[in-house]
């Protein structure tokens, strides 16, 4: 008996998935637990393991196409089974749901202008709950304005040109209507699921958590000396980031409130110190998490970190590997950034922004100048959880440990 294979939620926040690769072809035998296809979710590319057995009779969603959770992506059954009835029932469902992505599009790639226009059209139904004139839609698209934020003044609240124009006029930061870009033509870049989730989470964090920032300079000469000494004894080197993770974990042990989450009526103090490290990817960023850093040695942290980072760069992290950091570190030192402020990555309540190490003249003993290697740390804290003095005490202790690594053992 042929049945549908439905798109399932492969990450907690996933709503739609893009089939990046079919591992099985039509006609292939599929065992339960075998990988059917790879699905790009909002965060990573995941393997879709089949829970059904049989012969893959029909692929409904081609590579590169999207399907939302619960919609059929393929049909599985016995070899040679007649699936025309099942297919037509799926077709009816799909038509009534008005979700064009589920249906295989033609093979031809949009290669010329004409095609682009056609594909523009296909994207329209996604927002068809917002009443807007075609001209208003085009203007909004060209200006990158979300129609959802515009109040329509046309018949029955339809959004018309003047609404877009007055929105633009009321938003001074947006490029003025008259500006004609002198260089190349403006491009519209579709927002990937990952980009959408980054945008949503960070905006939510920045707008809901009252951030404040603490900054100090840390001398790193002794830290680097200690690292050099350790690395001479090891086959592979331990990275600066692994050290920082360890130092932070040790400092958090002394200030456990740093390792907490605001829950509106309660504050959750996490038992495990799970530290995320922001890693840049081609199409976004991700924070692989090293779990329980308080109870791990620096070599173990380094080993885990290395694995996680290489997976992150290949887009292969699973949700368990990138979700739920209780503290985050973002290090832009390798870009030569001297100092910066970071946006807290929920559910954590603080993030440490690390700048580059640089030799600098420092006035010592009030009358002599010494060259020291310094690094600027900026701690962003959620004031709902961490008060200024608490954040300051944490940062001061972190500084002490970095400047005098032996203190990590106290």
């Amino acid at each position, binding site marked *: 008996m042929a049945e549908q294979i439905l798109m399932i939620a492969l990450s907690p926040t996933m709503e739609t998935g893009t089939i990046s690769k079919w591992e099985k072809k039509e006609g292939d035998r599929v065992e339960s637990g075998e990988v059917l296809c790879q699905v790009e979710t909002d965060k990573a590319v995941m393997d879709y393991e089949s829970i059904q057995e049989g012969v893959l009779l029909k692929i409904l969603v081609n590579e590169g196409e999207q399907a939302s959770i619960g919609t059929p992506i393929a049909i599985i059954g016995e070899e040679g089974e007649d699936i025309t009835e099942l297919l037509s029932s799926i077709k009816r469902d799909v038509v009534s749901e008005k979700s064009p992505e589920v249906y295989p599009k033609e093979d031809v790639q949009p290669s010329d202008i004409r095609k682009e*226009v056609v594909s523009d059209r296909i994207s329209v139904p996604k927002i068809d709950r917002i009443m807007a*004139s*075609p*001209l208003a839609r*085009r*203007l909004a698209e060209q200006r990158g304005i979300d129609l959802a934020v515009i109040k329509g003044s046309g018949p029955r609240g339809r959004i018309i*040109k003047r609404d877009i124009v007055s929105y633009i006029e009321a938003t001074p930061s947006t490029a003025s209507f008259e500006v004609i870009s002198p260089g190349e033509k403006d491009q519209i870049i579709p927002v990937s699921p990952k980009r959408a989730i980054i945008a949503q989470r960070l905006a939510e964090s920045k707008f809901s958590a009252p951030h404040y920032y603490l900054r100090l300079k840390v001398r790193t000469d002794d830290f680097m000396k200690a690292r050099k000494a350790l690395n001479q004894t090891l086959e592979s080197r331990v990275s600066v980031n692994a050290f920082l993770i360890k130092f932070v974990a040790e400092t958090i042990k002394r200030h456990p409130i740093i390792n907490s989450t605001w829950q509106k009526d309660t504050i959750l103090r996490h038992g495990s110190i799970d530290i995320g490290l922001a890693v840049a990817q081609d199409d976004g960023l991700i924070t692989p998490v090293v779990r329980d850093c308080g109870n791990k040695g620096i070599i173990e942290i380094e080993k885990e970190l290395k694995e996680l980072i290489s997976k992150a760069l290949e887009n292969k992290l699973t949700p368990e590997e990138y979700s739920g950091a209780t503290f985050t570190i973002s290090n832009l030192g390798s870009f030569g950034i001297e100092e910066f402020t970071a946006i807290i990555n929920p559910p954590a309540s603080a993030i440490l922004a690390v700048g580059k190490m640089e030799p600098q003249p420092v006035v010592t003993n009030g009358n002599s100048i010494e060259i020291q290697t310094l690094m600027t740390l900026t701690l962003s804290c959620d004031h709902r959880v961490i008060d200024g003095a608490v954040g300051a005490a944490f940062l001061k202790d972190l500084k002490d440990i970095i400047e005098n690594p032996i203190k990590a053992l106290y």
Partner: protein
Amino acid sequence: MEVKYDYDLLVIGSGPGGYVAAIRASQLGLKTAVIEKDKPGGVCLNVGCIPSKALINQAEVFRNSRMLEDMGIKLDKSGFDYSKVFKKSRKAANTLARGIEYLLKKNNIELIKGKGFIESPNQVLVGDDKRFTAKNIIVATGSRPREIPGFTIDEDTVISSTGALMLEKLPKDIIILGAGAIGIEFAHILNAFGVEVYVVEMMDSILPLEDKEITGILQKSLKKRGIKFYTSTKAVSMDKMDNNRISVTLEDSKGNKIEQEVEKVLVAVGRTPNTEGIGLENIGIETDRGFVPVGDYYQTKVKGVFAIGDIVNSPLLAHVASKEGEIVAEFIAGLNPEPRIDINVIPSAVYCEPQIASFGYTEEKAKAEGIDYKKAVFPYRGAGKSVAIEKSEGMVKILYDPSTSEILGAHIVGAEATELIHELLLAKWGELIPEDIATMVHAHPTLSEAVMEAARSAEGWAIHF
């Protein structure tokens, strides 16, 4: 304490501005009366749009009789009697005038016969001694043909559009001064019935407000039919001769004098607002070049007094007056109507053959204002139906914004242009872009396919051209 008035609203004039305002006001619950010194319906209905269309229709029948001859039918035109054509046009006008009376009655609007004269912001004198009070007054007194020096209209040898509509006998030849919509329509009618027509226009093209590429096609067509045009030429003077004919002196742009002898002269150089002798000065309203200055909701500077139609400085068109009437009525009733009509969405229509219809920017206007535009055109002959019905002369032209595709203007010359324009106008009004028309399925065979193809041409993929 609130003063008691006879009416919530008094409308002076029952033309397409006045009667529409009155009906809309009455629909919205206002106690309304209309004052009319002549027949209800105003110029449009009695000596304007309606009777002229009756003449144009008959002119087309007459002109198309040659198609019967193509079929081998021998027509004996010796019994042709223009007075019958005239009478039919009057019948149409009278039927519709009675229709207006009926509509007013149906909407409980009192029709007060007589000439209205404003005595105060709330009181109008009608005739010698009847006085009516109202909380609001709408002045909708319309316009009359404008005269030019040296050509005093006597409605006998020198006639206005009114006189032209009232002709019971055709002249042998006529000079029409002014190649605006009225002049061109009469040129078409009279030429169709065999009158020798000379059209004189001061500007360098006929229908000077229309797109030149479009009027060029019309002018060529009318020339082919034997109408003679003098553009960039003005009429200087006229002399009545002994043989009951007139000699008209024309002067071209280089100062050359031309003498043209005709039986009649039709003065069609525009219209003048009727703003004198209606008491505006009694309430402190001053006119500007004859027009009453108004605000966004057609309010004059006197509270409770409004002005619409040909007496305000907006296009002198019946449909503009009607829309203005609706706006004022809704405004008085406390609704929140859209203010002031955007002139770029007002259609204009010229009923000659081929017809011209348009709205929005012409190429000339876009250039003059430095507006970036692209144009898309499609010839009628590319639409199969136009060839089948022998109306393949014409073109659809769309001007649009190159970056947003917003429709800036549209121009059609050709058969049924005045009906076809509304698909494009609806697109403009609803903010559709050419792509929307290009991708919509149109019935085949229709002239509307030319509109679709022009829109496709804007998108770069017209099929039949």
